[in-house]
């Protein structure tokens, strides 16, 4: 089907305030979140856990917390860029969750991660070509029609590119959003890490993105590692957000406006009080932006 005739509503429906700051729910922080119920604008949940965990402590926390907080749905298993078929059972779950949580949006990634029953457990980059754009547009159409809402896709971190790529990452993203009606979940850390890994200017990269497509931000900490020919930044979500990424995020707020922003910390997780400090920094950025607008 031609994407221009899509039946999917082209407006993102969310009950979240644009200046919302949230935290990801994961196995490592669920007990603390469950016990403490800190003040958060929203939490991010992974729909995959609702399929994979039929019971147990984490599922119990998840079920209670997702009704205590506003939520956003962030997937890692859709594998939208895969040549294998989309998982219909998974998409039906998303559709039902979106009905249950009218405030929520569903997001996944500009990547592929599985082929049939083979899961790579990672977000693997795609060849950035017109052929892939066309394929992605068809797949996004199929997913959006199945869940009855536009989806957001997140830019990924990558440590390699392909010789057959014909366009930059941002050109690739702009082309897909323009032709499919999907939106961008902008991971500022991934933009920064990719720029560092390939010796580029992150703001130059960011400033090329279609401003109207951005509907959310992710912030996380990447880790510096020494490899055979020098250092690289790996996206482990295992430390605090780098100062340079905060600066870049503030520039994004100025240029693209405020959107719900999530702090992701999923490995080497410190006590909840520490991650909440990072979430508080997001709220501080919103306040600064607001004050600037009022002055």
């Amino acid at each position, binding site marked *: 089907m031609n994407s221009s005739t899509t039946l999917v509503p082209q407006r993102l429906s969310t009950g979240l305030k644009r200046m919302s700051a949230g935290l990801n729910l994961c196995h490592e922080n669920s007990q603390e979140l469950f016990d403490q119920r800190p003040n958060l604008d929203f939490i991010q949940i992974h729909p995959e856990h609702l399929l*994979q965990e039929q019971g147990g402590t984490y599922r119990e926390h998840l079920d209670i917390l997702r009704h205590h907080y506003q939520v956003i749905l962030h997937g890692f298993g859709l594998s939208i860029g895969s040549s294998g078929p989309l998982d219909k059972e998974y998409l039906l779950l998303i559709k039902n969750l979106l009905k249950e949580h009218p405030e929520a949006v569903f997001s996944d990634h500009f990547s592929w991660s599985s082929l049939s029953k083979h899961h790579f457990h990672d977000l693997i980059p795609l060849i950035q070509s017109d052929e892939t754009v066309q394929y992605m547009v068809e797949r996004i159409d199929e997913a959006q029609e199945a869940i009855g809402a536009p989806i957001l896709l997140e830019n990924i971190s990558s440590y390699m590119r392909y010789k057959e790529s014909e366009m930059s990452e941002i050109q690739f993203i702009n082309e897909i959003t323009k032709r499919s009606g999907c939106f961008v979940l902008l991971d500022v850390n991934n933009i920064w890490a990719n720029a560092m890994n390939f010796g580029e200017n992150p703001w130059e990269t960011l400033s090329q993105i279609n401003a109207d497509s951005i509907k959310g931000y992710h912030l996380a900490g990447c880790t510096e590692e020494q490899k055979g020919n020098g250092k690289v930044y790996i996206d482990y979500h295992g430390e605090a957000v780098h100062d340079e990424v905060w600066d870049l995020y503030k520039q994004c707020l100025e240029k693209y406006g405020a959107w719900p922003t999530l702090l992701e910390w999923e490995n080497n997780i410190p006590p909840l009080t520490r991650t909440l400090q990072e979430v508080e920094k997001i709220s501080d950025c919103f306040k600064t932006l607001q004050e600037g607008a009022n002055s």
Partner: protein
Amino acid sequence: MRSAQIVRLQQQFLASLHDKPRQWLLDQIEPAPGFKDSEEVLEIYLHRAMARTVEPLKGIYQSLQWVLGEDTFNQFIQQFYTDSLGEPLNAQALSTEFASYVGNIGEEQREHLTSINRDSSKDDYSISTMVEAAAMLDWRIHWVTLVANKSKASAEELIRNLNHRNSIWLRPRLNRASRLCYSGVDLKELHRLAAEKTKGSFPTKCSDGVSTFLIYANQNHNAIVRPLDTQEARLLNHCDGTHTIASLIHEGKFFDQSKSQTLKLIKQLIDEGVICDLEDKLT
């Protein structure tokens, strides 16, 4: 429309996963400057695919890990990955596939798995038996803790219902994930020794040859491994939501159990969290 470009890329990744990286893929990749070559960057993705697939097994198969020792266990799960036909996303599906793999590799291969120094003269069962018992115990424990849900009623509420004069028509039920199983290895002892990471001591054979064990999760989702005596095993075997208390009392009388003894046993099993529901309708 299928994209020939995407199909080729992804097939090359898949082919590289269980074998050497494919040359076409290595030629296609432009690594970030920090990497020395395509192989180094590709290794990140291929290693993660393997490591993240088998990682949940380390958390699930703790008794087996204790029996085999960490190094042998790690080699074993890598062998499982190499032989595996797919990389399931779901840890539960993966754990089932692994349990099946352990059961199917054959007794001789299981005997060669362990590098543990132990006094074999003291043990009256084979390593193969122990490996299989540990794998099945771990699989069961994972299953009961993941599938178990808290019962709707508290133990106090169930006891109140049990004391009601019409309670003989209620149908006791175990948590749906609970499992009764038979083993010649003392599974409770195996579970304790593995949890405590005790060195140099293996569980003994069951004194009666083969015993019945109940594996269930309590209301806090903690797995409990419990040997059952004959009366408990008989009663629990029928606590599936179809038999009324009246029929359990009736049956007990054939085994010299009075009504009060059967009711006392039911109450005790409710208190322990083994019986989690008293249903008033057939389910």
